[in-house]
């Protein structure tokens, strides 16, 4: 029997966007619930802040969360829809139905991983993935780590790993120095706070070479990573390492919005001034509407929280701040745009889909993601294309336009009828 919970406003995701949305929605006195698949709130950046506070801003928001009247539903993963106004979620004890009047989607983003020869060797990991594993107890002290790919996340991950005793041997950023310079200048001019953060990060990483204009070509090792070969397009060289932590920017978690029928434009959930998606009563906030970092997530979350609870005046006051954070996001995304050479790093036999063992060569013969999926089973394994879909989107320009439930694998028992939703057996 499926238990159920009823909310006026349900927020999916307890990262900065979801928490901000929930706090603002709760000001209206309505019944607000926040669901997240992690055991604690905070999302990607504030995970663990409750126990080990680092961020000033996090502290203030967590304080607000504590005093707000809202239900936090941790360890609960939304896996699908259960009809209009209902989501199906999975917990350690089985399925649960979440009912809502209004829904705020703040499921965040994940890292993009691009295939190169050797990427499936043990020791090659996603940058955020390695960070999470170390947070989870993986010993990293004294291990040599190369962090490669693109974006500010590489710095954050390297700095974190260093605090846990890792030897960060190199940060390899694919973007060109000439592309990063205007970003740095814009930062100085418009975002003194961020400049300070960046300088602090750089200070934490003193002694660690940060090379722009270079990217991984190949990972080598006998059954386990031993070194990575990098290139700048003219020259190649190898760096010995125990871990290679890669991330090629972030991609939004579109599965749930797509399943709800929300329009997606240029790879992100389309929203109006009030963060409402194309589906009436369903709002989107944070990285799902565009990769833009903390400020954008917080501001959009607040607007969505206010808008979803009939507090439009409060929402409108934040519109200018949102514009600023979106401008920052745009500069960021231009600076760290992925270079074309990355489309040609995979060898014909490099796996693109690890779940179903599908090589680059087999995928590239097809004209669309749909055709490639049907003919090669690429993206049809348990991860449902979360890894290879983000890669092929960049490699071949194939957008993700549809999704099949469940958005995460779940026991068949969880599909059985709930008492509230009776249907006679055949």
């Amino acid at each position: 029997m499926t238990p159920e919970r009823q909310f006026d406003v349900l927020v999916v995701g307890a990262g900065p966007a979801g928490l901000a949305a929930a706090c603002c929605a709760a000001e209206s006195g309505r019944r607000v619930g926040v669901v997240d698949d992690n055991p604690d709130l905070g999302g990607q950046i504030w995970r663990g802040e409750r126990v080990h506070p680092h961020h000033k801003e996090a502290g203030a928001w967590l304080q607000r969360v504590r005093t707000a009247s809202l239900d936090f539903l941790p360890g609960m993963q939304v896996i699908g829809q259960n009809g209009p106004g209902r989501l199906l979620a999975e917990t350690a004890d089985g399925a649960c139905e979440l009912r809502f009047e209004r829904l705020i989607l703040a499921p965040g983003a994940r890292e993009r991983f691009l295939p190169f020869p050797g990427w499936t060797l043990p020791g090659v990991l996603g940058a955020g993935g390695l960070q999470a594993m170390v947070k989870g107890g993986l010993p990293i002290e004294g291990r040599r780590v190369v962090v490669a790919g693109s974006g500010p996340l590489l710095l954050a991950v390297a700095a974190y790993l260093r605090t846990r005793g890792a030897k960060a041997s190199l940060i390899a950023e694919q973007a060109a120095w000439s592309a990063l310079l205007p970003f740095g200048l814009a930062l100085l001019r418009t975002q003194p706070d961020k400049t300070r953060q960046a300088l602090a990060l750089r200070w934490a990483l003193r002694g660690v070479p940060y090379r722009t204009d270079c990217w991984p070509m190949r990972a080598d090792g006998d059954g386990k990573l031993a070194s990575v070969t990098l290139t700048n397009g003219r020259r190649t060289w190898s760096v010995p390492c125990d871990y290679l932590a890669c991330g090629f920017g972030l991609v939004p978690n579109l599965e749930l919005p797509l399943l709800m029928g929300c329009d997606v434009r240029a790879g992100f959930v389309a929203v109006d001034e009030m963060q409402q998606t194309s589906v009436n009563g369903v709002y989107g906030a944070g990285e799902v509407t565009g990769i833009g970092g903390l400020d954008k997530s917080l501001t959009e979350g607040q607007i969505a929280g206010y808008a979803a609870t009939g507090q439009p005046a409060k929402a409108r006051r934040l519109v200018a701040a949102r514009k600023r954070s979106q401008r920052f996001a745009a500069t960021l995304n231009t600076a760290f745009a992925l270079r074309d050479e990355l489309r040609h790093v995979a060898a014909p036999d490099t796996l693109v889909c690890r779940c179903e063992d599908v090589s680059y060569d087999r995928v590239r013969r097809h004209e669309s993601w749909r055709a490639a999926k049907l003919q090669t089973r690429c993206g049809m394994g348990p991860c449902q294309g979360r890894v290879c879909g983000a890669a092929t989107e960049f490699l071949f320009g194939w957008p993700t336009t549809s999704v099949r439930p469940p958005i995460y694998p779940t026991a068949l028992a969880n599909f059985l009828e709930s008492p509230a939703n009776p249907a006679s057996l055949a």
Partner: protein
Amino acid sequence: MSVPTCQVAVLGAGIVGAACARALAQADFQVVIIDPNPIGSGATAAGMGHILLIDDSPAQFALTQNSRQQWNDLAPELPDDCEFVKCGTLWLAADEDELDEVRRKEERFRAAGVAAEVLDTRQLAAAEPNLRAGLLGAFFIPDDRVIYPPCAARWMIEEAQRHGTQLRTGVSAIEVTGKEVRLSDGSRISVEFTVHATGCGTAKMLPGVPIRPRKGHLIITDRYPGFVRHALLELGYIKKAHGTDTDSVSCVVHPRRTGQVLVGSSRQFDAESKDVDPRMLARVVARATEFLPGLTRLSGIRAWTGFRAATPDGLPLIGPYPELPGLYLATGHEGHGITTSLGTAELIVDHLTGRTPRLPLEPYLPARFSGVPAHA
């Protein structure tokens, strides 16, 4: 402007269009195959891929026997990605009525000289340990198989291409007028014959063709090799497939070569949206679980729906479209088109060449329905 000539246009690159193109090309026709979508992405992508004998009518039995024979003859040639596995079928009997049906089936199969066997409770439990206790028996058909249909469709089209067939995806046919097919990109192809293998799309282009889309729900699990060993169907399936107009659900469970378990399925008329309906999916899972209680623990990774092109009598429409000389139908295969694609292709070649057919032509002729103008 010159209009390129081509003897036959096959509309639709699903399994039926692919099989027709291959057979026609092998019979030396000049073929062009047209589909707005990638190969095998319609019902062919959604279907379960059971190659099975259906004996609910003499015509269906004949067509499925012919087709299954052709499939089994192809086994050595089919590429590995078609995942063609000889798992056999077990029709499950849950009560005395169904056990009687097993006995009737046995007679029909014996009369037709087709290999099959009756299993009692104990033999069934040994064959499928995950079935619930207390089933009365089963009808075992050893030569039935399962296949991965989109790759089979692609392979057939590649075979046709080796015989000179042209494939044009990304364009649809918008009008067929006697000797010409007009395409959505503004081009035209002049043809001797056109074969409409557009599945549920046929009724949209040729109103009056009695096809109704019949929605089905399926879900596939992660890999559990050996959880089921045969394609399992409850005997109630046939009644539900053909007997009724209302929504129905029956237990159909297949082992895939990957070790995945494919669970179906439902039948619904007048359901327009292709979205998964959680209630219908719940009924599908519940029904399958009544036979395989352990299913509830398996991890489901993907659910989807598909539309079967259903005709009033459950038989496909194969042969001339009476209203328009030169136009042939190869459509309306409901829930058996993966199987019957090969027999359909043979019949289409019979019609276009006038050679002596191995199967009777009449039971499948579109002209059998009054809705189809029958002046031919």
